[in-house]
């Protein structure tokens, strides 16, 4: 027997907002919204009131005042005569470069460790377990500090590289020497590596608000063109394979098209390497990578890689053993089983948590503050905030910047995730 019970038809009464389940949720939502608006309003009012009590006002004009301070690591031109906004950009590029390289290194190391943790070799698998557990369970801040202190305390001072006349006479070697065929010097201040220099650069054109580096643009164009041409070659080969059944040999064509044009261009522009030389207090020439950068990168990579390793391991283990057994039964070799059967399916499991690891790594770059790495929290959130006294504005800008970076990363990764996801047809 079924009973259909209709709600009694009655007019709307105010008490129904509380006692009628159909309307109660609206009431609750309205109240929560009102409370939320009140809270925000109260905070805003409080801020405004307290600022005006101190004779301050919210203003971003300070961004166009002279900064007056120097930044140890600048990827874009900057002097102490530049404005605070320029310092913000310098900090932003420093944040992005350590986050970008960190994400790549952490992914490579993480995948490597994750696969090795599943190794049948007992020793290798256990070593990887030790690594993962050690890095996952100690705060990142300590790893950052540790790598920085180790680098600055254990490496030789630049003066140890000096060869004096007495030493040559006595046949003594200096206390420290450069590595990699006398091209790389690691001191207690940083790493000096050779810098690629072009004899005949293409110069740059000034667009008023910014200057365009023509050499850089040419490189982007050539590399992009090479990659496009290579894609064409590979897709042609695939089409031939699908229609005729045999795949033409393409590896030498790919190599040629990928590296030929860029090599020709480098030779044409007169590429040479400038090696660092000890002059005065420090090594001069070449490229200087401060230890704050190296330490932060190493710590971020090792720490995040431990998490990525676990994600990769979980992803591989999530694939049913039957899949690889079926592939073996079809006669696929282990390598092809991994690349054609297991990994494509594992990626679906791996990528979503990987996105949050990338986001974590990017946000964790702000820990560079403890070793005075000049990222955006060091320039804008540190020195600029302190020299101008604009705490609210600087912190607000910083939040905005981190939010934008994070949203961009998740947008890109979500796009990639959709392309690897199971397509329901």
């Amino acid at each position, binding site marked *: 027997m079924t009973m259909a019970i209709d709600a009694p038809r009655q007019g709307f009464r105010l008490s129904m907002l509380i006692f009628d389940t159909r309307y109660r949720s609206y009431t609750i939502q309205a109240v929560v919204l009102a409370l939320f608006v009140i809270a925000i309003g*109260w905070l805003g009012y409080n801020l405004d009131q307290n600022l005006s009590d101190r004779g301050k006002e919210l203003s971003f004009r300070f961004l166009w005042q002279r900064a007056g301070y120097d930044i140890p690591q600048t990827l874009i031109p900057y002097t102490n005569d530049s404005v605070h906004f320029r310092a913000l950009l310098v900090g932003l590029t420093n944040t992005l470069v350590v986050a970008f390289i960190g994400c790549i290194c952490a992914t490579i190391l993480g995948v490597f460790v994750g696969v090795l943790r599943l190794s049948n070799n007992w020793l290798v698998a256990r070593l990887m377990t030790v690594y993962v557990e050690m890095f996952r369970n100690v705060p990142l801040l300590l790893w950052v500090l540790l790598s920085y202190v180790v680098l600055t305390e254990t490496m030789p001072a630049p003066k140890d590289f000096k060869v004096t006349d007495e030493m040559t006479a006595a046949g003594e070697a200096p206390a420290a020497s450069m590595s990699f065929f006398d091209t790389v010097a690691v001191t207690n201040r940083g790493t000096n590596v050779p810098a690629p220099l072009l004899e005949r650069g293409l110069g740059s054109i000034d667009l008023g608000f910014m200057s365009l580096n023509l050499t850089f643009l040419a490189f982007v164009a050539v590399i992009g063109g090479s990659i496009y041409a290579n894609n064409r070659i590979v897709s042609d080969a695939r089409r031939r394979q699908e229609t005729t059944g045999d795949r033409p040999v393409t590896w030498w064509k790919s190599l040629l098209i990928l590296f030929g044009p860029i090599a020709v261009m480098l030779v044409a522009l007169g590429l040479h390497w400038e090696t660092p030389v000890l*002059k*005065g207090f420090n090594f001069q020439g070449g490229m200087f990578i401060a230890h704050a950068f190296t330490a932060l990168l190493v710590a971020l990579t090792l720490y995040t890689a431990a998490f990525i390793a676990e994600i990769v391991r979980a992803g591989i283990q999530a694939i049913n053993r039957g899949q690889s057994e079926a592939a073996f039964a079809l006669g696929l070799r282990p390598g092809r089983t991994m690349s054609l059967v297991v990994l494509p399916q594992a990626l679906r499991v791996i990528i979503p948590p990987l996105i949050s690891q990338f986001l974590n790594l990017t946000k964790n770059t702000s820990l560079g503050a403890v070793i005075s790495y000049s990222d955006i929290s060091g320039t804008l959130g540190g020195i600029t905030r302190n020299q101008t*006294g604009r705490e609210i504005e600087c912190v607000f800008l910083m939040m905005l910047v981190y939010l934008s970076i994070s949203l961009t990363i998740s947008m890109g990764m979500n796009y990639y995730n959709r392309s690897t996801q199971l397509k329901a047809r």
Partner: protein
Amino acid sequence: MKKSVFFGALAATTLVSGLAMAGTLDDVKARGELICGSNTGLTGFGAPDASGNWSGFDVDLCRALAAAILGDASKVKFVPTTGETRFTALQSGEVDLLVRNSTWTASRDSELALDFVAVNYYDGQGFMVNKALGVSSAKELDGATVCIQTGTTTELNLADFFKENNISYQPVNVADDAEAQRQYTAGACDAFTTDASGLAATRATLPDAENHVILPEIISKEPLGPVVRNGDSAWGDVVRWTYYALLIAEEKGITAANVEEVATSTADEEVKRLLGVSGEMGAKFGLDNAAFKNAILAVGNYGEIFSRNIGEGTSINLARGLNALWTQGGLQYAPPFR
């Protein structure tokens, strides 16, 4: 109804924040404790010892203030602040005042909305290097790596100095004196720059102090002094005049040892007013009449504080120089106590 509650709450908060702004002196009295923003640790100026007792030149000014307001020099809580956190700590009300080698500048007075009430140490920025470098002038530091504390005036002076002299340097940013000292000792920077007094203090704590030399160039004016929040001039007056009381005490030869005796025997009217024997100057500041006497009794006069913490004969070994009394050719000068 909701609306009226909302505006009521708003009015109440405004009132509370208004009150908190107006009366730091009342807050301190009600709390029974002075909260003093101090250095994270700069020997001679403000540093805790192994058992957590703070001592130093700046610390003694805080103690004098506590003695003046609360009658007990031990009722001070010291909050360590770095170059970057100090002004935020002051403005947020976390500390009542800052006494930590902070330089008085125009933009800090205006843009940061702070009030520098006095100058308790006239200083200038210098450089310290290892003798082994063979450097005798800061102008020879071309290409050197320099340790510099962030969020300081010295950071800006450093940039200006190297630019003016057309030489280059590689900055190594550090957060506080301890980190600067670690990097400098490890040789991660060739030179360390900060206020000359800070250099002397850092040098004194190095195990091989004789191997380090402070270069002759003083590249800036660094008037260091206590700082309070803008808009609370009654509180600023209390800090300012407690400091001046210590200066007047030195001028008049009043010390911690003889202050009681002077109070009973003096015929000098200014001293009588200062020590609360006649008139009620203390009360006009909202303090006890014997407030300034208590301050002198607790820490001694300016000269005593100086020679006890940083003067000649201590490990820091600074001469009075600019900080001598105006009667002895220095700049320390107190307005009349009248």
